[in-house]
Every structure is written in C-alpha cells, then in structure tokens.
C-alpha cells in the first residue's frame, strides 16, 4: 500500500493537491486539498453594491464575466430590480460565447495532452494523418502537406528545447493509446484552436465595451448601447453582422473540428467510460433565461438535480438548501466544527492547522483543505457541463436528448457511460455545439428588437440608493462554464454588509464533510488504475475532466534562475 501525492496538479488554474492511496495498482482512497483561501468578502464589505461586480470579476483569471454576472444578479435579486429584455439577451450572448471559448480551450489546451502523446505525433505519417482527418470531418485544412508542416514545426520546437508549453507531459506513458496519426491530428488542432480562440474572443470586445475585462455590466442591465442609426453604437446593424459572422466561424469549428476530435479520441479510450464516476448526484442552477430571471422553467439549460444516477427524475432546486461544512477545512465556525452554514449566513474565519511545509502528507483525519465542503440538502453534488447536460437530458430537452443519444450511438455506449471521466469530456463538447447552434438566433432577436424600436438596455428605476430598503438580502445563481456559481449579498444602509461566493470548483474539489462523505474528486478517483505511481497520468485525466479552477487569483510570474537586469530602489 503506498500513498501517492500529486501536487500541484498541472495544467489547471490554481493550486490543487491530491493524495491517493494506491493498492494493487488501483486507487483505494483519495483526498483533495485546494490551497485557495477565499477572501473576496474582505474586499467588498463596506462598498457600494453597484460596484461589487467590478471587484468580484477579478477573483479569477478566466472566469471574470461569470463573477460579474453573478454579482449583478445578486444585487438585482436583493433590490428586486428587473432587467430589460435586450440586457438579458446581451448577457446570454456574452455567457454563451464564453462557454464556447472556454470549453474549446479546455479540451485542446488543458486536457487533450492527457490523451494525446506529443512524441507519438512526431512519429506519425502525415499522409495517413490526412486520410484520418478526411475520414472523420469535412474540415478543409487536412492535406498531407499541412500535417507535414505541423510535424516539422513541432519537431523544430522539440529540438530547440522551446517546447515549454508541452513540458509537463508524461510522454511515452503506457496509458497513451492513440495511433500516431491521431496524435498528430490532435496536435495540429491544438494549434488551430489557439488561432480560433484568438479570433473568437473578439466577440467580447463588441459586447463588453472593453476587453479582456468587460466593462458593460450594470446593476439593472447593461451599458451596451443598441442603436440602428448610430455608427459608433456598440450594437448597430454592422456590429450585429460581425457577431453573426464570428458565430458562424465558431459553429463551423465546433461541428467540424471539436466534435469529430472528441468522438475520435473517446473511441480509443473506451475504458474511461466506466472510470471516474463522481457522487452520482448532479446539480445545475440552470442558465440562459429566455424570459424573466424568476421564470426558471424557461431557462435554455434547465435548473434541476439528479440523484443517484437516476435519469428518470429531475428534482427541483431550492437555493436555501445549499450549505457549507468546514469540518475538514481550515476554518472555524462559531457554532462548532460539525455544523454546516448557509452561504447567506456564511463565516470565513481561517485557521490553518495543517503541517508546516515542507511536509510529506497532510493529516487527512483532521482539516486538510482551504476549500469548504458545499452540500445540497446534505447531498454531495457534482457540477459542470455533465450535470447540466444530464439535467437537460433527463428533463427531456429535445435538442439535448437528440445530441446525447446521437453521440452515444456513434460511440456504441449506453447512457450510463455518461457517468464517467469521458462522459464529462463528451458532455462539455456537446454543450459547446448546442450553444454554437443557438447564438446566431439570439443575435437575430436583438436585431428584431432594434427593428421594432426597442432599444432599452438598462432599468434605472432603482439606481439611486434612496430607493432601496434599509436592509436587503439576495443571491445571484449562474452556471459558469465550470459549473454552479452562487453569489450571496447582504446590503445594509446602502452598503455591502456581507458577501459570500460558492464557486464550481468548491463543489467538485471540496474535501469530506461533517458526515465523512467524500467530495466529487475524491469519489471519482476511486478504482482508477495507476500504471506508474511516479507518473500519475490517470489521476490527471479524471481531475482535468472536471475543468478545475482554484486559486487563479495570484499571478506572480516565476522567473527564478533567469538572467535579468535589476535595479534596487
């Protein structure tokens, strides 16, 4: 019996440590420890609630928009503010394009190298790669000469030791199973996805006023002016044409590159359809309102809960049933160690009791993580694209049902195969396709409204603080690309009194709770075969399939050991 430590888990955002017990070549128990200390409430307490989103959007590197949106929603919920229809559509478009962007970056740049061996790509025959590419997709960039060119570029990078992007891979690991042609195809698309994301992200420059940090949110709506007769308006007929064009490019890339690649890679790793199952409970707050935000039944991605992998029933979500344990987290609650607290009553009193670094193992019998353990009605919940797609599938959303059934048929797999590491990968890709199918329609809705003279983007009725009650509480629920995100705000005398956030990775990466139940990562790692404990590629596959994001808040560049010019002040 051996204890294995993976710290930090690479190619994720932030710091995550996993300790796993390996027995007979398989993981028999696992502990997930996040090194994030959540302190955003310390930053926003005492501020004007209308500016909270400007601060909360800085919590995370790639999740800025989701924290901005959850924050304005929380304040709108507390102050009972309705937003105009145009603002709803613009918010949906910003979020949907973020999903598409993030999911593609996740697959190609954060996850693909867990399945794709760069050294295999160097051995591939470009002509066979071209044949493979043309057999699975219409995508035109697929000639032998093209793949030979990619191979030469990667070879040159390897030889010049400039391969820093690819340095952490466990190249040549026995768990890699792709034929060399598929390796080369995936590496080529890794590069194409970089170029795709570079162009696609321009959609946010139009909708957000300023990128990378969108400036167009506003409590009560958006600042994105829409005006058919103003050439400089952020949204006018020409800008809408541009958005439609970018959306079309995205749809083509998703249909012809992402989906065929995911299905092809999955086909070579079928064993991973029966590994990596989480707690079997799936939560989605629902996303993309099609009417008023209170009208949750009309969300494009439905709100709901699935329990015990039972797809015959979707349970309703009551936000009041969310609470957090700190039994195994480095915090103290005034009411004791074994209670759980609702986020609205949340406390963040850090108390580190772990070992002093450097250390070998955490004391997992006691507290071992900076993440709290969120639970829904005491159930452990998995969140993310798989949860959203399962809830939509079980709720009978016809398009999702057709897509999921179609993918399962192609993979010759039953619905139960979705409860797995590869199920997460497939669900994320299908969700990308679903949204890519719909954003053009949402842009056209804006065009229709503009045509009918509906130019309203903001509701200013309750903008002035003297129109607010003396105290108010609210929550903003949203599905970030990674999963369920909630902001809870308490306003008193026009200022923020308390603010709490429960982020997707806390749901997935959190530790055991007061009842000893494992968190989703901890459960998903059980039974995972480990070919080589020194190179735990299999652990990365399952952890990365969740798209982890933890303390992506600190970004000091590590340049130790480099040559540089210095000057002391």
């Amino acid at each position, binding site marked *: 019996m051996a204890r294995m430590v993976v710290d*930090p888990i*690479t*190619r*994720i*955002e*932030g710091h995550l440590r996993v300790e796993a017990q390996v027995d007979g070549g398989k993981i028999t128990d696992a502990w997930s420890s996040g090194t994030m200390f959540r*302190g*955003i409430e*310390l*930053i926003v307490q005492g501020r004007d609630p209308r500016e909270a989103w400007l*601060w909360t959007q*800085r*919590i*995370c*590197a*790639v999740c*800025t928009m989701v924290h901005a949106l959850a924050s304005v929603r929380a304040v709108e919920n507390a102050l009972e503010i309705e937003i105009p229809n145009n603002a709803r559509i613009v918010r949906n478009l910003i979020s949907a394009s973020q999903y598409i962007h993030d999911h593609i*970056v996740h697959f190609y*740049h*954060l996850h693909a190298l867990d399945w794709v061996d760069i050294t295999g790509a160097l051995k591939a025959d470009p002509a066979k790669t071209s044949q493979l590419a043309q057999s699975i997709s219409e995508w035109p960039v697929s000639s032998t000469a093209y793949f030979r060119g990619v191979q030469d*570029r990667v070879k040159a990078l390897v030889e010049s*030791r*400039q391969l*820093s*992007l*690819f*340095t*952490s*891979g466990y190249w040549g690991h026995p768990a890699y199973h792709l034929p060399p042609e598929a390796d080369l195809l995936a590496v080529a698309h890794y*590069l194409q996805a*970089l*170029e795709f*994301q*570079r*162009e696609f*992200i*321009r959609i946010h420059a139009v909708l957000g006023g300023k*990128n*990378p*940090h969108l400036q167009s949110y506003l409590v009560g709506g958006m600042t994105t002016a829409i005006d058919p007769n103003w050439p400089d308006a952020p949204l006018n007929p020409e800008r809408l044409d541009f958005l439609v064009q970018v959306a079309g490019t995205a749809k083509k890339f998703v249909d012809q590159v992402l989906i065929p690649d995911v299905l092809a890679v999955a086909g070579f790793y079928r064993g991973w359809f029966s590994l990596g199952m989480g707690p079997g409970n799936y939560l989605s707050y629902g996303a993309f309102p099609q009417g008023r935000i209170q009208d949750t039944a009309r969300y494009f991605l439905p709100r709901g809960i699935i329990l015990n992998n039972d797809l015959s029933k979707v349970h309703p979500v009551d936000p009041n049933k969310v609470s957090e344990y700190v039994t195994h987290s480095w915090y103290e609650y005034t009411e004791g160690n074994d209670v759980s607290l609702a986020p609205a009553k949340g406390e963040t009193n850090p108390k580190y009791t772990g070992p002093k670094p450097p250390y070998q193992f955490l004391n997992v019998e006691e507290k071992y993580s900076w993440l709290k353990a969120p639970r829904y009605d005491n159930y452990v919940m998995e969140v993310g694209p798989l949860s959203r797609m399962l809830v939509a599938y079980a709720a009978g959303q016809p398009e999702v049902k057709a897509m999921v059934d179609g993918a399962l048929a192609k993979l010759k797999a039953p619905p139960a195969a979705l409860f797995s590491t590869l199920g997460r990968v497939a669900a994320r890709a299908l969700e990308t396709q679903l949204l890519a199918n719909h954003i053009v329609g949402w842009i056209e809705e804006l065009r229709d409204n503009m045509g009918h003279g509906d130019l309203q983007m903001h509701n200013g009725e309750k903008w002035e603080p003297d129109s607010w009650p003396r105290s108010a509480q609210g929550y903003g629920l949203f599905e970030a690309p990674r999963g369920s995100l909630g902001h809870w705000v308490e306003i008193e005398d026009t200022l923020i009194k308390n603010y709490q956030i429960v982020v997707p990775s806390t749901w997935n990466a959190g530790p055991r709770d007061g009842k000893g139940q494992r968190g989703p990562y901890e459960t998903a790692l059980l039974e995972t075969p480990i070919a080589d404990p020194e190179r735990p590629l299999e652990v990365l596959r399952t952890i990365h399939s969740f798209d982890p*994001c933890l303390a*992506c*808040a*600190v*970004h*000091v*560049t*590590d*340049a*130790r050991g*480099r*040559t*540089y*010019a*210095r*000057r*002391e*002040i």
Partner: protein
Amino acid sequence: MDFAPAAKTVVVGIGNPIRTDDGFGVHALRRLQRDPRVPPDVTFIDGGTYGLELLCYVSDSTHLLLLDALDVGEPPGTLIRMANGQLRGLPCAASVHQVGLADLLATLPLVSTAPRQTVLLGVQPLSTDWGTELTAPVEAALGPLVEEAVAQLVGWTEEASAARVPAAGSRGL
C-alpha cells in the same frame, strides 16, 4: 519588400489588483497611460490575470512591453528588466492560465510571425495577500518603473522613425 510592416506597440499590465503586489503591472499600466510623454499610437491593455486570452491583443504587435510582478528572489521592490531571449523558456508550469504570461510568450511564435521586440519590466513583490493597495516597497518602485517604461517606449519610437528614412527614398506606394 520595400518596407517593413507598420510598427505596433502594445503595453500589457499583468496582475490582480485585488491581491496587493500581484496587481503591480495593472497599477503601473494605469499610471503609464496618464503620462503625457508616452508616444501616440501605443495600445494599453489591462491584461489582469489572463493568459492565452490576450493573444488577440498582442499577436500583431511589433513591440511588446509587459509590466508584471516577478519572483526572482530579490528584495521586495527591486526593479527587473528582461528582454527578448531572456524571456524565452520562462517556466510555464504547463498551465495555460496559472502562469499566463509564460504561456502567452511560448505560444506567440506558434500563431504569429510578426517581428517583435519584447521587453518585460517587473518588480519583486513583497505580498500577494488580499488587498487593493501595493505594499510600501513595491509602491515606491512604481515611479522608477514608469520612468523606465517611458524611456523604452520613446526609444522604440525613435528607432522606428530612424528606420523609416531609407524606406522614404524607395519606390514606395
């Protein structure tokens, strides 16, 4: 070719302004942006903690100036300058977003062929705790760093106008 592509200078401030010294690059960017000595046509990007998301802003730049907090093990507040070759092979930690800057620099040559001068001006941080203010030694480095940044931008502009002289005598368009 008779003439080089038009110069495009981009300044990116990197860091998280709610994590004290981590936000140094963003604080420096804001101050530099207001400095009247900065040549016209310089593009300023608040890069925050993004990595690859910044590709579209920098991939067509010919001159790239990065402002960042940099851990080199020096006393807090030490100014650091790295250029071109020195920036090659910064430890990526293989995370697209965690060490965004290193990944961004590693990725640039894969998606762009623009000839490029890249300079990074940074400071050794003291703290990256939650907070919206810089610590004292790092705050004290803001002024000197902005001076260096202005000198760099002015230097690039002068080089570019010197380089344009022969092009003016060619056939041109």
